[in-house]
């Protein structure tokens, strides 16, 4: 294994990592936001809207990300949607992730005891206040672990962005291996980068979990 290669290609590998992280952060955050809106709309919205959103979830969840990205990037210009690789990649991640996030939130919403919401109504709170102050904190307890889980899956889906020439990690590593024929080193580096990245997210997820369910802790008493 040739360690010098990593020194020589360090800057472009780092640049690749940064692009991967950027696409993931914006893609996951956007997916979570869109997923939440879809879940809330399905919960409170009128029946026709629910059917439309159910259709969206089924279609996006039922097709490979690779195909979705191809259609968005290469098919987009046909309908006037001309995007640069990075924005196209991020938009793709948001669309691809949103139905999974929506289903996590939908399950979480259904698990919030009805009595908690009724107590809010009886106290003359508006539905918006109830959602923000009561439903959301309670639903996060059950939702954070699966949200972390899917966000980790999404880190590895970012590798697919290389096919629309987003200069992310896999794209840069492929450049390196094509120029140096050092395939073993390249793949090894790639695996290591993703693993490190995932560990950071996993750690952050556990922190968030502890924060959202602090009130369940046995140590908390007065």
């Amino acid at each position: 294994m040739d360690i010098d290669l990593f020194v020589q290609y360090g800057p472009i590998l780092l640049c690749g990592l940064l692009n991967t992280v950027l696409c993931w952060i914006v893609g996951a955050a956007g997916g979570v936001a869109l997923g939440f809106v879809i879940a809330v709309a399905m919960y409170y919205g009128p029946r026709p809207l629910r059917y439309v959103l159910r259709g969206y979830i089924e279609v996006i969840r039922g097709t490979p990300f690779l195909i979705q990205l191809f259609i968005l990037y290469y098919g987009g210009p046909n309908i006037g949607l001309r995007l640069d690789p990075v924005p196209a990649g991020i938009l793709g991640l948001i669309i691809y992730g949103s139905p999974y996030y929506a289903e996590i939130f939908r399950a979480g919403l259904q698990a919030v005891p009805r009595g908690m919401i009724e107590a809010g109504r009886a106290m003359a709170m508006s539905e918006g206040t109830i959602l923000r102050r009561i439903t959301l904190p309670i639903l996060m307890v059950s939702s954070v672990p699966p949200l972390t889980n899917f966000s980790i899956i999404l880190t590895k889906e970012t590798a697919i962005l290389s096919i629309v020439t987003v200069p992310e990690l896999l794209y840069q590593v492929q450049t390196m291996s094509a120029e140096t024929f050092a395939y073993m080193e390249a793949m090894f580096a790639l695996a290591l980068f993703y693993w490190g990245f995932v560990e950071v997210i996993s750690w952050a997820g556990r922190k968030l979990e502890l924060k959202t369910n602090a009130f369940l802790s046995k140590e908390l008493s007065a």
Partner: protein
Amino acid sequence: MTSENASSVEITALGKYYNSFHALKNINLSIPAGKVTCLIGPSGSGKSTLLRCINFLEEYQEGAVEIDGQVIGLESVGGRKMSARRLREMRRSIGMVFQQFNLWPHMTAQQNVAEALVQVQGLSKAEAARKAAAALQKVGLGDKTESFPNRLSGGQQQRVAIARAVAMEPKLMLFDEPTSALDPELVGEVLTVIKDLASEGMTMVIVTHEMGFAAHVADQVAFLEAGELVSCAPPAEIFRNPSDARIKAFLETYHARNQF
């Protein structure tokens, strides 16, 4: 009759359906201001449903519930549903206590009480916290302000729930089987708090299976069975001299169950 800090409730020809099930049948009931009305009857008789119609947590299809002369939930008798905003306006003066307490688990006792003071009444956080602490003090939980609900006994949780409702200074309090989910030894502490509140003169409607309590605090007792209001009379009449065979039968089962 309406007094400064107590509402009166007038229930007229009230009908409620769950799909084809006729849950409440032509209920007519007057709840005078400042008095305690207990709703009793067998399980499934419609007591809780009737109570929940009073703050429109349950929608009704026939007749009306009027609070201080104003129909709740509908724009007029038999009319369209009122706006969410106007319903909230009416609910501001109605407190409710639930069988399962329904405290918000992610908030401490004090936060539970302060929440609506801030979000609904628009008090500052400091003012709400002060008021919440005072309300908890009043139900004997001055030392539990920082406890989360899952660290409190059922009786303590229900007292927090009562403090939460009372802190809003309602003119009408609804209690939906407030002691039914409690271990027998915890029932007393909750009933004592309710009794104290009753002496302060706010209108109270209490669905209960505690006949001794009802006999003691109620000004009138309404007996329901199978969605019908069988009788509404002073407790002495209901408990000592029931006019209807159904009430007699109900009380006999109750006494049989409580003998040992």
